[in-house]
C-alpha cells in the first residue's frame, strides 16, 4: 500500500499536469489502473482498497494495537479519592488477614502431623514406618473436579468403577 501511495505521490505533478497521464517507468499494475481515474477531492479511489490478504493482516494488527482500548485516567474528586483509598486499604488488610489465617491453619496442621508421627513412633515402630513412608509418584484422583458455582445434579457417581469402561469396550 505504501509503495502505491508513494509512487502516486511521486507522479502527482504528472497527474495534475496532463489530462492523460503517462505511466512510463512504473510497472505496478495497480498504479496503471488508478492512472485513468478522474481525481476528485475527498473521494475514495479504488487504489486505496487493499488486497484481501493484506487487509486481513491489518485487521489482526489492529487487534494488538492499544489505540482507543486504554481507558482514560479516572478523574476523581478528593473525597472520592479518599474513599477509594480507604476501601483499598481495608481490602488489602482483609486479604492479608485471610492469608494469615490460611498460613496459621497449615502451620498447625503440620505441627499436628509431626506430633502424631512422634506419638506413633513411641507406640509402635512398625506402624510408624508404614504410616510415614514416602508415597513417590502420588497422584490425585483423575475424577476430582474443580468445584463450580453451578454443580451438576448428580455430584459424584458413587457406583462408578474403572472396570465399567473396559466392559463397554468389549
Amino acid at each position, binding site marked *: 500500500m505504501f509503495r502505491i501511495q508513494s509512487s502516486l505521490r511521486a507522479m502527482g505533478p504528472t497527474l495534475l499536469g496532463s489530462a492523460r497521464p503517462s505511466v512510463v517507468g512504473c510497472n505496478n499494475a495497480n498504479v496503471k489502473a488508478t492512472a485513468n481515474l478522474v481525481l476528485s477531492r475527498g473521494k475514495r479511489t479504488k487504489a486505496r482498497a487493499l488486497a484481501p490478504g493484506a487487509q486481513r493482516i491489518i485487521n489482526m494488527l489492529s487487534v494488538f494495537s492499544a489505540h482507543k482500548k486504554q481507558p482514560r485516567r479516572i478523574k*476523581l474528586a478528593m473525597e472520592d479519592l479518599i474513599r477509594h483509598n480507604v476501601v483499598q486499604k481495608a481490602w488489602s488488610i482483609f486479604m492479608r488477614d485471610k492469608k494469615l489465617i490460611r498460613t496459621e491453619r497449615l502451620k498447625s496442621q503440620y505441627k499436628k502431623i509431626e506430633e502424631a508421627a512422634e506419638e506413633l513412633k513411641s507406640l509402635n515402630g512398625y506402624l510408624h514406618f508404614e504410616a510415614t513412608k514416602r508415597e513417590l509418584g502420588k497422584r490425585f484422583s*483423575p475424577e476430582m473436579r474443580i468445584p463450580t458455582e453451578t454443580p451438576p445434579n448428580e455430584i459424584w457417581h458413587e457406583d462408578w468403577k474403572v472396570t465399567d469402561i473396559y466392559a463397554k469396550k468389549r
Partner: protein
Amino acid sequence: MFKRAFHTTVPTAGKPGVSIVHPVHHTVKFKKAQVSERYRELLTPKSSILSAGFRPLVVSPDRVRDHHYNTIQSDLLLINYMHGAEDKKGIKMREWDGSSPYHLNRAPRPPRGRSRATKDIKVRDWSNVPEIVGVSLNCFVPEAKEVSDIAVAAKLQLQQITGVKARTVYSRSNVPTWRLRPGMAMGAKVHLVGRPMNQFLYTLTEIVLPRSKTFTGVSNSAGDTTGNITVGISADDARSFPEIEGNIEQWATTFGFDITIHTTAQVDPDARTLLSAYGFLFKGEEKFPSRM
C-alpha cells in the same frame, strides 16, 4: 560495589551532555530528562488509581484459586510430609584447591558427571507447599521464516486464547543455509499469572485436553528438574479452545504451542503431584531424583 557516575543528559548541538547542577554525580545513573515535570505522571505506580495504567486486580471470584486453598494445599502438605526430614544440600560446582596461584580467578568446575549444579532441597513444610505461580505459552512457527505474516497470526491466536497481550519472538541466530537471519519474527509468547492463568488452566484441563484425539497425557519425563512442567498442544487441539472454536471459519490455520507451567515445587515429581490435582493426567515411567 557501586560506581559513581554522571547522570546523562542529552547532548544538544554544540554543548556536551554534562550537568553542572548540584549534585553533579549520583550513585544511581539516571536520565535527567525523565526527572522533568512532564514525566511526573509516569512515576505514579500502576497500583494507584491516579495512574493511567490502573487496573483493579480482584474483580471476580476465582474457583481455581479457591480450590487450591480449600482442598489442594492441605492435601499436598500431608502428601509431601517427611518425618524427621532435614535440608539436603544439592551438588555444587567444584572449587579449585588453591594449590596454584592460577586458581585464584579460575572458574569452578561443574560437579562430577554433571554439567550444572543442583539446588538445595529444603524441608517441605507449611511455608513451601507447592503452587502454580505462572503459565507461559510459547508458539514457535518455523514457516514464519518464509512468510513473516504468519507470526502475526500466531500472536493473535495466543492473545485470543489467553486474553493477554502476547509478545512477538524474534530469531537470534544467523543460519545462512536455512535463510535465517537475526531479527526475523518467528512466533509469539505470553506469560500468564493470576486469574488469566487460572482461566487458561481450567479451559485446558476441562475443555481442550479431554476433547483431544491425540493427547494421551503429559509425559512423566517432562520437566526441567526444578518443578516446571512443559506440555505441548498440537495445532488441531488449539482449535478446540472456545475462543478459536467460536469463529472457526476465521481460522484457516492454527498453530501448536508449548505450555510451561511454573510451580514452586522443588523437584519435578512434587510438581506432577500438584498438577494432577488440577486435572492433568500423566503417562509413562516416572523417575525420581535421588536428592528429593
